[in-house]
């Protein structure tokens, strides 16, 4: 009797094994199929806009004339965000990893992570209701005193709903991402390097400059790239904050638009070729962020192989 029950259970177990491993394999493949589908469906739906005669596309001069100001606008907003967020994020990461009292450090890290938890639409609402109003006087000042720089050319927007405000909101949104990644990297600095530097009489800042920053440089670069990927694709903050318009060099005037915001503002009411145009714009955004993210991931994996930290 025992033998039969044993064989029975073995049979059941074997098929269970097969079913289970097949299920996990299928789930994994599904992800590949979905990503392939993302690319495929976007291309299929975008094609009509790409091949349509120029006068049918919004603006009347073809898809590429339509898309390039949006690409430039997206890049401007993201670069502003990174220029502001990167130094602050590295400072915060250093504070949490090397300056704050050990007991407080994880709690403070959690506080910064809270910034990442706030939904993007709330940031947008905050940007338009609070930040734009508070910051517009300083735009007037910039226009008055720094107006000779093309990027601060006046007259400044009276509402403060400019690409610079949008960039600042984006900076707040990418800050927690860059912070948490660089923090992890700083914490991986070999303890022996740090202690050796301190033992040779280095001050804390010299220790950081000689051990932590060189060790973390590839990590910082890739963290910034991942932040860039996030900033490029961020929609709501820009859609709500920026009062969009034609491409302008001045950051404190109304104008400029990003791809993501353009899609969000127009897609709900779009029909016909306009839908295809917007999906093609989404495809362009997808390709840009994909490139940025792949470079960032590439740096991380290459660094992992050589660092010897793990």
């Amino acid at each position, binding site marked *: 009797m025992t033998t039969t029950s044993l064989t029975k259970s073995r049979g059941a177990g074997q098929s*269970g094994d097969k079913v289970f491993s097949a299920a996990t394999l299928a789930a*994994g493949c599904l*992800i590949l199929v979905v990503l392939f589908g993302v690319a495929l469906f976007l291309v299929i*739906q975008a094609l009509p806009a790409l091949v349509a005669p120029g006068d049918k596309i919004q603006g009347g001069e073809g898809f590429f004339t339509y898309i390039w100001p949006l690409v430039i606008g997206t890049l401007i907003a993201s670069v502003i965000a990174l220029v502001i967020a990167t130094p602050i994020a590295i400072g915060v990461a250093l504070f949490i990893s090397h300056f*704050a009292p050990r007991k407080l450090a994880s709690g403070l890290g959690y506080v910064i992570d809270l910034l990442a938890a706030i939904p993007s639409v709330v940031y947008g609402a905050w940007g338009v209701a609070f930040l734009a109003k508070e910051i517009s006087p300083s735009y007037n000042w910039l226009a008055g005193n720094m107006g000779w720089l093309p990027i601060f050319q006046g007259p400044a927007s009276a509402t403060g709903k400019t690409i610079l405000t949008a960039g600042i909101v984006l900076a707040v949104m990418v800050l927690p991402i860059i912070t948490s990644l660089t923090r992890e990297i700083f914490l991986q600095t070999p303890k022996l390097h740090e202690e050796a530097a301190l033992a040779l009489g280095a001050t804390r800042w010299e220790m950081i400059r000689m051990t932590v920053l060189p060790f973390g440089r590839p990590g910082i670069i890739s963290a910034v790239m991942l932040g860039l*990927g996030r900033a490029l694709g961020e929609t709501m903050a820009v*859609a709500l904050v920026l009062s969009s318009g034609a491409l302008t060099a001045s950051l404190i005037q109304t104008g400029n638009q990003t791809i993501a915001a353009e899609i969000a503002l127009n897609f709900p009411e779009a029909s016909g070729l306009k839908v295809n145009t917007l999906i093609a714009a989404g495809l362009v955004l997808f390709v840009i962020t994909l490139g940025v993210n*792949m470079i960032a991931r590439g740096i991380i994996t290459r660094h992992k192989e050589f660092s010897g930290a793990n």
Partner: protein
Amino acid sequence: MTATLTPVRKRSALTKGQLPKAAPYIVLAVALILGAAILALIGFNAFGWGIVSAILFTAGLVGWSLVVEGVRKAKDKLATCLVVGAFLIALVPLFSVIWTVLVNGLPGLLDPGFLTTSMNGVTGAFDNKTVEEGAPLLGGIYHALMGTLLITVLATLISVPVGLLTAIYLVEYGEDRALARAITFFVDVMTGIPSIVAGLFAAAAFFAVVGPGTKTGAVAAVALSVLMIPVVVRSSEEMLKIVPNELREAAYALGVRKWRTILKVVLPTAISGIASGITLAIARVIGETAPILVTAGFATTINANVFSGWMASLPTFIYTQILNPTSPSNPDPSSERAWGAALVLIILVMLLNLGARLIARIFAPKTGR
């Protein structure tokens, strides 16, 4: 004789050239007073006071240190000031956002019926009446709350099995095969997909398969799943990886099948981390606006059917109420509703984040020792 024994207080060479311990406090006090004085001249405001005092503090402390301690220590002090300053600057928007939402959102949230009525039939005329005659604010977020919950639940039902099974494949069956490496790579790629592109993908797929203009809650759920699956895979994978191999080997040694080992030994050990990872993934997608906007549209009425018709959600409700107020001439009631909804959304997200920590603590495996 006694005179020679009088101890001569001499500073040791080791402690020479150091600032007194109280130096930062002294400089801080001076900087605060000076800052207040300067601001009093040009018009006082708290934000400016903080900035001016911080600059004065940094300059004072670094300058003093430069004179007494030398260049290296002064640089160290400067770096410390900058790093702490960066942290304080990062806190400003956090508190500003939370404060703005609380102040603006509480009146909306406290309106009677805000959580239990929809925007069905609420027109600009009612809002004009509210502003001009002080009539009670009509309309609420019930439909949006329902929509958010339904879409999020459906997205979770799609993402969790797929994500969890994929993570199990990667950790237990993958063994560094080409397929496993490809999945890992593309999951990384997926984490970087902009949310609006995920929305466009779902829209494009349903347009192609079901018919142009298909916008329902289910499409939105698919869009959110595209964003949620990579998060679930990543966090579950990390958690499964840290399950000690001894547990698996002990189970195998007892003759337990691999799938039973995974279900009965590996998953229960890692369940706290997996559950908290899933909760965090939900918290991430519940606030997503752009993908819902392009896939489910926005509605003013209650729609409990995710498979047909446009559907409202909290984020799109906030967005449309701010951008297209119900009454264009009197946007205040709309913005009050938007802030109320924003407060509800933030509370939901914070509860989910808190829940994730509690889950991690409650379900953590008992160590026994």
